[in-house]
């Protein structure tokens, strides 16, 4: 009996084990007891959500966005020898495509974590987290959520809209809370706008945030301008209004286009949203995408297209051509289907190693969007109208003023300008979709000898298929039409 007694007293020590090195949420998350997270935990949750997106999500934000935005469009070929990338480039993708699946998962993983953060922080008591800071945190988190949804809705159209954390009471609640059907794109856009408008009045100005990777008013205004230019029907007044707001935030174009990519001008005045990588060994994270684009060895990704090279050459756009593309002699290292190996073009916009920053949105995009809005609003002049803003971009690149004067010509001129200015930055495909020109442009893509590339593109391929594995996890999810 004595032994038994001795042992049983020792038992609670044996049986009550707490994680070591991870945080047991019961200490910070006790809804039944009306508990609250602390101010420190609120900050840690927010920075956790940021860093999950920027570090675990680097593959999407810094790399796959270029595959989707440029290789799927006519700026680049898939390069490499990954079948998933080739399928995206050649419009043969299906619901088992690995890239498509990882893109979906990445975006929703961020949203799930942001929903957790928003839920926790909004339930924090005033005493723990002062209302002003709490509102800032919520504004940043909601803006990030909106940004993720913007990517989703552009790639898949209708997508499940989920704004609350999972309810893990039992199997039923688990599935009911997260296994929901696709919401129509317009509903998703409404939600995006609600989140962005919430954020706009609460987040800090760009000069108040420590780094440009923190959500600022400038980023939110940029997002709103882009959202209104994308949703159907486009609302050009709103685009114009939010572009003005960005301009008023004080961003400027850098004097030299190459400063954007030379690694010497981090968090510059042109940069709106820029991720800072501290590098390997810093305890944070390093940018690894350079090796995907340059350096001998294995085939490189997203190799520039003949169409893009021809566009640079036709425009006489040497400045941006040289900043965007470098020519290498990699004879004998692999065989490229489009280019000779002794004169092979590769992306030149990612030059730095692991401590490089990566710009997601920059001011030139907004300037061109402003030009586009003014074109659509029929304010075409070169004093304060569309031509004025278009020329700002052209002049910085050392090009003469545009010769386009009519609305129709300006539309095409701006499209071309965006192609050259923003090449390999993940814009082209979404611009073409937005303007309804994707099918036409892709069907006109040409090889080196000007023979058509004959992409087998059909209208349904403007949207990605929903990953089969996600449909398997959520039977209420329907496949995109056509797949």
């Amino acid at each position: 009996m004595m032994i038994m007694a001795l042992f049983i007293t020792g038992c609670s020590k044996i049986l009550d084990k707490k994680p070591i090195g991870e945080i047991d949420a019961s200490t910070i998350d006790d809804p039944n007891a009306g508990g609250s997270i602390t101010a420190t935990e609120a900050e840690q949750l927010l920075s956790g959500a940021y860093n999950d997106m920027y570090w675990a999500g680097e593959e999407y934000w810094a790399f796959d966005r270029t595959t989707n935005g440029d290789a799927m469009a006519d700026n680049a070929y898939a390069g490499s020898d990954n079948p998933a990338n080739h399928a995206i480039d050649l419009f043969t993708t299906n619901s088992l495509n690995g890239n498509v699946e990882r893109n979906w998962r990445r975006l929703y993983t961020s949203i799930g974590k942001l929903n957790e953060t928003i839920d926790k922080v909004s339930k924090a008591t005033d005493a723990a987290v002062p209302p002003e800071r709490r509102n800032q945190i919520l504004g940043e988190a909601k803006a990030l959520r909106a940004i993720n949804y913007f990517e989703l809705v552009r790639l898949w159209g209708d997508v499940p809209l989920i704004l609350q954390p999972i309810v893990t009471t039992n199997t039923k609640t688990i599935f009911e809370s997260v296994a929901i059907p696709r919401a129509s794109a317009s509903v998703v856009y409404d939600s995006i706008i609600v989140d962005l408008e919430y954020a706009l009045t609460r987040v800090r100005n760009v000069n108040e945030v420590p780094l440009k990777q923190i959500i600022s008013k400038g980023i939110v205004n940029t997002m709103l301008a882009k959202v209104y230019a994308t949703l159907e029907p486009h609302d050009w007044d709103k685009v114009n209004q939010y572009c003005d707001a960005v301009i008023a935030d004080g961003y400027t174009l850098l004097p030299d286009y190459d400063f954007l990519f030379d690694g010497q001008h981090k968090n510059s005045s042109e940069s709106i949203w820029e991720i800072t990588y501290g590098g390997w060994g810093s305890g944070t994270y390093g940018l690894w995408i350079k090796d995907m684009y340059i350096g001998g060895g294995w085939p490189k990704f997203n190799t520039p297209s003949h169409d893009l090279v021809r566009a640079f050459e036709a425009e006489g756009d040497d400045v941006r051509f040289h900043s965007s593309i470098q020519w290498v002699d990699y004879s004998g290292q692999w065989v490229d289907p489009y280019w000779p190996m002794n004169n092979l073009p590769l992306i030149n916009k990612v030059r730095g190693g692991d401590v490089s920053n990566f710009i997601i949105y920059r001011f030139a995009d907004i300037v061109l969007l402003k030009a586009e809005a003014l074109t659509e609003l029929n304010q075409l002049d070169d004093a304060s109208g569309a031509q004025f803003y278009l020329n700002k971009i052209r002049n910085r690149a050392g090009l003469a003023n545009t010769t386009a004067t009519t609305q129709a010509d300006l539309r095409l001129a701006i499209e071309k300008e965006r192609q050259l200015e923003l090449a390999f930055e993940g814009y082209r495909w979404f611009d073409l979709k937005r303007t309804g020109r994707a099918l036409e442009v892709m069907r006109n893509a040409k090889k080196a000898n000007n023979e058509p590339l004959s992409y087998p593109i059909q209208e349904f391929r403007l949207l990605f298929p929903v990953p089969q594995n996600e449909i398997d996890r959520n039977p209420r999810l329907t496949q995109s039409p056509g797949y």
Partner: protein
Amino acid sequence: MKKNRASRSHAIVPSVIKLLMVMKLSFLMIILSFSHLQAKVYSQGNITLTLQKTAIAKVINKIEKEGQFRFLYNYDLTDLKKKIDIKVVDASLDETLTTLFSNTDLTYKLLANNLVVVLSATMQNQPVRVTGIVTGVNAEPLAGVTVQVKNTTTGTATDNTGAYSITAEENAVLVFSYIGYNDMEIEVQGRNVVNAQLTPSEKQLDQIIVIGYGSQSKKNITGAVSTVSVKDIADRPIINAAQAIQGKAAGVQVVQPSGKPGVGMTVRIRGANSISAGNDPLYVVDGVPTTDISSINPTDIETMSILKDASSAAIYGARAANGVVLITTKKGSGKKMKLGLNAYVGFSKPTNTLDVLNGKQYQALINEAYNDNIITDAVVAANNVNWPDEVFRTGVEQNYQLSLSGGTNKFKQYFSFGYMDQTGMIKPAYFKRFTGRANLTHKTTSWLTLSTNLSFSNAVSRDVTDNASSSRGGVVLSALTTPFTVPKYAPDGTIGINPNSGWENPLGAIEGSESHTRNNRFLGNFSAEIRLMPGLTFKSLLGLDYTNGYNYNILDPFLTIYGRQQEGTAGRTKSKETVWLTEQTLTYTKRSGLHNFSALAGFTTQTSRYDPSSINTGKFGRDTAAKGIDYILSHSRNKPDTSGYATEWGLVSGIARITYDYDSRYLFTGNLRADASSKFPKNNRTGVFPSFSAGWRISSESFFENVNNIQELKLRAGWGMNGNQEGIGNYDYMKRYYKNPVTGDLTLVNFANPSLTWEKTTSVNAGLDLTFLDSRITITADWYQKKTKDVLVRMPIPTTSGLNFISLNAGDMENKGFEFNISTKNIRNDHWDWNTDFNMGFNRNKVLNLGDDPNVQIPAGDIYQRGNASLVKAGYPLGAFYGYVATGIDPQTGNVVYEDRDKNEEINPGDRTFIGNAQPDFIYGMTNAVRFKNFDLSVFFQGSQGNQIFNGARIETEGMYDSRNQTTAVLNRWKNPGDITDVPKAIRNDVANTYISSRFLEDGSYLRLKAVTLSYRFNSGFLRRMAISNASLYVTGQNVLTFTKYTGFDPEVSTYGNDGNSNVKNIAQGIDYGAYPQSKAFIIGLNVTF
């Protein structure tokens, strides 16, 4: 001599005490509190007593408690219950007892040592006190032998010195019985001393079977237990103890996932019960439960018992659902010290080779696929490296073991030292293991036995990447897919690359990076066994399992592309795992006439703490790399990243068992175990696991005496419930965040599941044991059905939740089957001996349910850039393959034709279906052992029938979609419209012909001559002159012949068989994706005993 022995036995005491110091204080107190009980009392004393209305027996007790006298009497004497009044003051024993026994039938005799025998005065025969020593082989005293007066309930048991004392009538017959020995009857014939020497039983039925927390005679076993003994594994180059079970135990499937040195085995006892938790059995090494037996030297093993059904395994409760393998290591025996030497050395090569295209054939293929003259004649002429030959070489295996065994009556010892060295067929991979063991038993006093089993192992290995696509650095697939035109090195000394793909040759994987592991493990126990009274024993055991792990990897900064890009990377992980076990058990055995009863009760705890810490860095030069890992870590240009954490679990359990048999004819066993585990939430952490089983030995019935030539017929049946918590994470029930140590960021990593609990497997077993034809044929057959509830499912949840998975007890699984073992003694005479053992197991597995939603399905088994090959869904067995159905090659286009199952006129993922199953219809093994004069020949076949293999390697070796080299299978490819073939055309960058489909599904059935051993025992006359007691020389062939239709390297393969994610490991069975090939080995060995 005597002095010597004494001093030796004393020498052990201080060290034992030192060991005891680390045990719980309570344990020490137990030992101390009992130590005075046995103090002998010789002095005569005076008795003072005043008692009213007290039973005479109680009065005797009272006198006995004074400590001067010990009493022996038969409880059945009725007068002992008579109540009397007594008052004596300072009386002698004679006075007291005369008063006490007045007016009764009782009288007494005073014997030596103040032993008082109380008897009936009216009995005709005078009882005598009989003492004696019971010995066994080599005149060693036997402790715990039951000594019974025939046809009475009077009985006792021998102590540690083999001594007993009993009161019996002058003409009584004493029956001596001991497990594993023949019963012996001796007439007392008025003697006071009756010694007995028991002979070990030759009968299989009397064989001792180790069961949980004890042992049992085979004839009394009521559960399903298979055993593998030392002779089954002798003379075979066995490196992992689990290999010893393969093909030897009916219903136990052992798969060696690859031929890589030191690879872990996949062991499934009667199928898999779980989806996401563990499916491996619990191993118990000399009483210490563990999940890893890679450090155990198989040559040290005496027996292995495989507890297959719920009733035999139930004593391990919450960890028993997957069956239990009890491993008992050798103990010292015999009085003479024996020095044993075992040594073998051998060579290994792959069991099979695959032919790949030569330079010319490759040129034709690629120029066809690229529709261009990509590979010129000059390129073909420039290099001609046969990459498979370059990569697959001859491996070397060697093993040396020295053992010292023997002892005295009091002290037994077994020491061994072993060294094993296995150099792989793919060069940098090796596995070396040094092991040391000391098993000591010290019979300290007649009532106390101290034992310890200590083992130490040091295992060092170097890994090479297999089970991966060649573009992910898998060396096996790279060996097959690197064209002969690729040079070994570029002119600058870097690894040569395929100029059409940019991928490096296999030397990149072999020389470009290195990965080393070193594990030091101490596994041992200390125990004290105390005989409280005849039949009642208390045992206290303390076990320790400590592993110190160390591993590092270096990516060369120069040789490979990736290495140059990263400028080298290096990492080192150190880990420590400490598992403590305490165990307190009481066992009681009682034999009363034909009634045999035993009971076990106990209390045990186990705790574990694992803490790894790692450091990673990058950017260093070749000079730095050459100076080794420690130098790199302090001289790299990157600031090293460090990380560390710890994880713990604990288990507290109570155990109980009752066995009862009547005349070994009617048998009953009941087990109960209650476990409380730290892996589950507080209100949900205790589980109770009961089991019952019964047996009927029909052959012992009187009506069976006339049945000719059946020596044994036993029916067995059992029911029980077991649990499984292996593979469930230590904190899976908690919602958890990871906190970045540098930034403090919180990231959600796990959702809470407050109702997480163990898996519960309920099983029934019915069995038959039959021995007939003069014991020449023995058949054991078992039928079983297992249902597992609350199967842990790492449920894939929509990523809209933020995470991919949540751990839920959502599934139900069923396994049912039939298995049998037939042993025959075909020839038995002076020169010849031929025995055959044959076993076979049929298991049917089915996932009954995967939670509330019928659409739930869980994929696993990733094939690079193609998706998953395996899928679990309710209604299908675990290990089912899922993909397209390929129906052939279109003669017009040369493309693979897939079945359009959803009839939507195109091939899309909706056309996929279940296409096969990795689980076999049955598995079997057969051993023939022939002895002819001094020769022994053992031929062991083993096989698996009806299982399929998804040969994912063929996607890379027959895909023809890029510039990889291919196997010669593609020589039959489609080339022109109208060609009728089963190999599609070569087409660049198009993977439509290499979807996961039935095209790559193959019959994985095989029959294998697993081992053939011929040994010669040297003539003893010659040996005696050399002071050698035994010597034998043997040659063994391992995996000599394999009969299979499988086209890959070897049908015994499982790329995901050792996956760290148990979800993947359980679901993705039977996939071959470039596993290190199995080896065929030829060994020559020598065993000598001095």
